């Protein structure tokens, strides 16, 4: 009896319950983080890219841009950190599109996992990697001559606001990846983010743009979002309400789209 039992392969038990939301989201996030940090091309290129753009703005274009009373580096760095995810977030859309094309999303959807844990896990992981690029970009900012005008607490508050934006942009890029038919298309779609980044008060004072362009710059979300970061650095909370309202609106619109789109 025991002899035969030894040769029979160990049957794999069926789990007694289906995974809960934190557990499933955690696994989805863990896998995305492993992929990111185990692919040096992804995180090293992220750092190189953000340093390169910052270098170009600061030292190449910067001399030609008049930022009013503040020096350009002090004008640029806060908003650059706030919008860095718009430059690096294309990778999120690409990763989401790849998962879909390569069958990984199908595998997840065939498992008894709560549907929104797919979006939640992905958002957690990508927000974490975005936070990483925010911190490294801020470090480059200091390296390239940025100095805090206010207290360090105000600096931390500004960084925290950037972290909120990281979550917001993550969800937007996830949705792009879900609508893209493949990775290349996702890469292309994510260039839309450049339009919002450039036609805003992030890198040049909005007043320097031609009159017909200024309304777009003024009423799109990025301008109040970066203005709020700049304000926090000098201890002011003007623009903060509008920036948080935009963040909440974007999350509220894009999260349900992502959840529904994942189900398809």
């Amino acid at each position: 009896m025991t002899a035969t039992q030894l040769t029979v392969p160990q049957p794999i038990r069926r789990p007694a319950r289906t995974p809960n939301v934190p557990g499933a989201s955690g696994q989805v996030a863990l896998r995305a983080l492993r992929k990111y940090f185990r692919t040096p091309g992804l995180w090293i290129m992220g750092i190189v890219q953000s340093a390169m753009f910052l270098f170009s703005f600061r030292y190449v274009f910067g001399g030609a841009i008049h930022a009013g009373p503040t020096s350009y580096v002090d004008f640029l760095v806060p908003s650059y950190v706030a919008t860095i995810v718009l430059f690096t977030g294309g990778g999120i859309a690409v990763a989401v599109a790849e998962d879909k094309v390569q069958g990984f999303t199908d595998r997840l959807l065939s498992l008894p996992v709560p549907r929104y844990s797919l979006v939640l896990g992905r958002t957690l992981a990508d927000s974490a990697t975005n936070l990483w690029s925010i911190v490294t970009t801020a470090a480059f900012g200091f390296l390239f001559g940025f100095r805090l005008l206010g207290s360090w607490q105000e600096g931390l508050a500004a960084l925290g606001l950037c972290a909120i934006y990281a979550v917001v942009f993550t969800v937007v890029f996830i949705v792009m990846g879900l609508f893209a038919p493949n990775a290349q298309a996702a890469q292309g779609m994510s260039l839309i983010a450049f339009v919002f980044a450039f036609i805003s008060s992030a890198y040049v004072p909005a007043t320097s743009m031609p009159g017909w362009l200024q309304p777009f710059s003024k009423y799109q979300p990025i301008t109040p979002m970066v203005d709020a970061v700049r304000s926090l650095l000098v201890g002011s909370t003007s623009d903060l309400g509008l920036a948080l309202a935009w963040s909440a609106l974007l999350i509220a619109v894009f999260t349900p789209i992502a959840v529904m789109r994942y189900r398809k």
Partner: protein
Amino acid sequence: MSAGSPAGTEPPIAPLLQARGLTVRFGKVTALDGLELTAPAGQVLAILGPNGAGKTTFVRAVATLVRPTSGELLVRGRDVVREAAGVRRDVGLAGQFAAVEPTMTGRENLEMTARLFGHGRSAARQAATAVIDQLSLAEVADRRTGTYSGGQRRRLDLGASLVGGPRLLLLDEPTTGLDPVSRREVWEAVRGLAASGTDILLTTHYLDEANELADQVVVIDHGRVIATGTLSELKASIGRDLIDVTVSDVGQAGAAGEILERVTMSPARLEPGSRHVTAGAPGGPAELAAVIGCLEDASIAVDEIGIRRPTLDEVFVALTGDPDTDRAPAAAGQMNNRRAR
């Protein structure tokens, strides 16, 4: 973990699959067109059909990844729409692409999937180890799957669908794109699983694969079932033997074909430049004797002659119709390539 307590109560023995009028449309494309199927549990079921027949859509419907446009699909008695969560617990899917994470090791992949099936940490570890043993992946288990061969990756993908102890394993074209050695590896694994009592539904357009693995075959085309049965039943359903003649001289193949047609009263098949002629023989062995006599009278030298049951390829072509006229050019080309093997 409590020791082996059954998870929920088992439904009374329901058919493995029950499809009634199952229709799936994507825009204007009808992938499944009122498919009817009842498959009992306890077997390996192969879904056979040309490209675009609806095989993958059917598997995706069983895995709850596409919702039926109309009709009904029950998996072990559970409705794929109303009881999707229950179906997902029952089913393990290994799709056309090996959906494993290349930057993670085999073991990490298996443990992750086990957790996503609902296992706790230690149960997930046990399940991963059991699967690694079962599929002979021990040597590579702790290497990143990006370094795996195609066959190893497919086997791991198969393993990932097993860690939740599924009642039904779905394999969508499990060996497409694999070299012959890797195919055998996957076949061995599937046979092992079937022997251990897992129900398996696999799709394939390789007839030899169905021959190797399946107890029961369902042939679908244009989103409908056009034949079901065991392989020998399917062969018998074509209902006639075939006479093969190989002439010594290519120049006489045409004459041999005419004799075959005259005797058997059925069209002979003759590939240009080939010495090989085939025709159906509704009259059985008596016609073989007559053919041999006529060939001798006409002084046609013959290397080989015989009567046989049709091959699965011939059954398949007979069931799905002539692929050259019936299908888009690209799909027809692929069919021809397969037949040429």
